[in-house]
């Protein structure tokens, strides 16, 4: 029974990270960009929630959505010039943006956490026999599933989705064929803002204190998850995010009490092993050998 509870805890954490991973995976898919600043969307949204504590959710949710999507679009503008730059340059650019936003938050709100309060009851638990399940877990799984499905439908069934996939597979050729790349990329960033909003609203009941590093903490884990899962396609990336959260919780529970301080070592060790065995990603089909 104890182990079933561990499993439930692990699913809970995994489902939260999968939402963030979905956003990171989407941007990577379209832009080949690892956006370290994705976490700052959550952070800025978090401070928006803090600033509006006590307001009606019907105002707060659209407001947070607006702020996050707006920030995502600003980021897109900042990254636009670098679309064909080297990956390292793009990565450091996203890091600079992340650092900038965190520095501003640190100056504005200090490193002291601020408590946000929305959908607080979601993290309450109900019990089935001896097992305890948080409502937020069920909601996360449902929302995660719906969003993954929704984004996939969007990519596969809509014109702009098709264009997005074309841009993802070869931007130059897509451009040459008349795809309006900017519009596609902007749409992808807006969508990633929506995903970040969903992730934030589900994180808050469980992690209600926002600090300048709030988003970075989450984004790093989700990013590792995305790479481990396989970043070329959306579903593997999302499952990767789920896996890293799941493993984080499961490893903690299974470690002997005295050894739990070594959680990070075990987790990172597993990450390395997976990357060595399946460099293309845990949930990715085997790639064809590089054609020469």
């Amino acid at each position: 029974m104890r182990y079933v509870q561990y499993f439930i805890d692990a699913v809970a954490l995994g489902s939260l990270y999968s939402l963030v991973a979905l956003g990171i995976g989407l941007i990577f898919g379209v832009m080949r960009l690892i956006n370290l600043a994705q976490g700052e969307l959550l952070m800025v949204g978090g401070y928006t929630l803090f600033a509006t504590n006590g307001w009606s959710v019907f105002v707060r949710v659209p407001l947070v959505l607006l702020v996050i999507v707006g920030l995502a679009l600003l980021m897109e503008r900042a990254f636009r010039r670098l679309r064909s730059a080297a990956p390292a340059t793009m990565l450091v650019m996203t890091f600079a943006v992340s650092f900038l936003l965190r520095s501003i938050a640190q100056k504005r709100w200090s490193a002291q956490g601020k408590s946000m309060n929305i959908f607080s009851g979601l993290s309450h638990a109900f019990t089935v026999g001896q097992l305890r399940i948080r409502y937020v877990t069920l909601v996360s799984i449902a929302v995660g599933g719906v969003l993954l499905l929704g984004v996939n439908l969007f990519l596969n069934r809509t014109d702009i989705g098709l264009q997005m996939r074309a841009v993802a597979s070869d931007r130059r050729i897509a451009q040459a064929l008349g795809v309006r790349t900017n519009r596609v990329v902007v749409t992808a960033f807006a969508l990633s803002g929506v995903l970040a909003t969903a992730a934030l609203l589900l994180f808050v009941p469980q992690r209600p204190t926002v600090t300048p590093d709030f988003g970075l903490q989450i984004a790093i884990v989700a990013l590792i998850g995305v790479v481990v899962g396989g970043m070329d396609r959306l579903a593997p990336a999302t499952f990767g995010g789920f896996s890293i959260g799941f493993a984080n919780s499961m490893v903690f529970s299974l470690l002997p009490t005295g050894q739990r301080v070594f959680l990070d070592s075990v987790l990172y060790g597993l990450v390395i092993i997976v990357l060595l065995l399946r460099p293309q990603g845990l949930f990715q089909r085997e790639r064809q050998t590089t054609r020469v």
Partner: protein
Amino acid sequence: MTERPGSLHATALSRTYAGVRALEGVTITVRRHEVIGLIGPNGAGKSTLVNLLSGFDFPTSGSVMLEGFDITTWSAHRRVRSGLVRTFQHGHAFPGLTARENIEVAALGTGAARGVAARRATELLELMGLADHSNAEAATLPHGDERLLGVARALATMPKFVLLDEPAAGLNEDEISAFADIIKLVRDERNAGILLIEHNVPLVLGVCDRIHVLDQGETLAEGSPTEIRNHPAVADAYLGATAG
């Protein structure tokens, strides 16, 4: 045919990609001091065969022997060090390096000292007629020169066997006849065995000692240039389509 020292020999090579057969039971031998032409229509499996021979891909079944050693599972660089080198269809020159550096680094790759590498580069630039471009970055070279540079780079590893993957694409007629001389020179002076993959039929017919024809992943014919020219199936499958 049995394997003998002094040859590169592939037996019954097959390669399947996700259920699709790219190559099926191909057996081919290249001896030292011999130029073998490899021709066939697009998608016939020529590139797959070169990849399997050079270690850039590995066969689903079959084996590759080099001078008596089974090299089927050897990595590409190990094959190079044992004297089996290839060039690339799309150039793959190191774009940021000069022509000379491209050649030097190849020599260094097989363990040559820097002085030796420099000497080899000078020789090969001369041989390929690239001496004027020696300090130009590879990325700025015309297409034809880039191909020649690829060949020079391969020769800098002092190979016993060279697999030339469409080296003449983008060359004009004068250049092609000069290139034919280079191939013969490599064969005669360096005593190398050469596998020449080429669409340019006159070049293949003119320079090759024997010709191997692939179609749909299988060997269609093999023989001297004359035999191949008169082979009805080959004419249908290939020569008729392009040479005509």
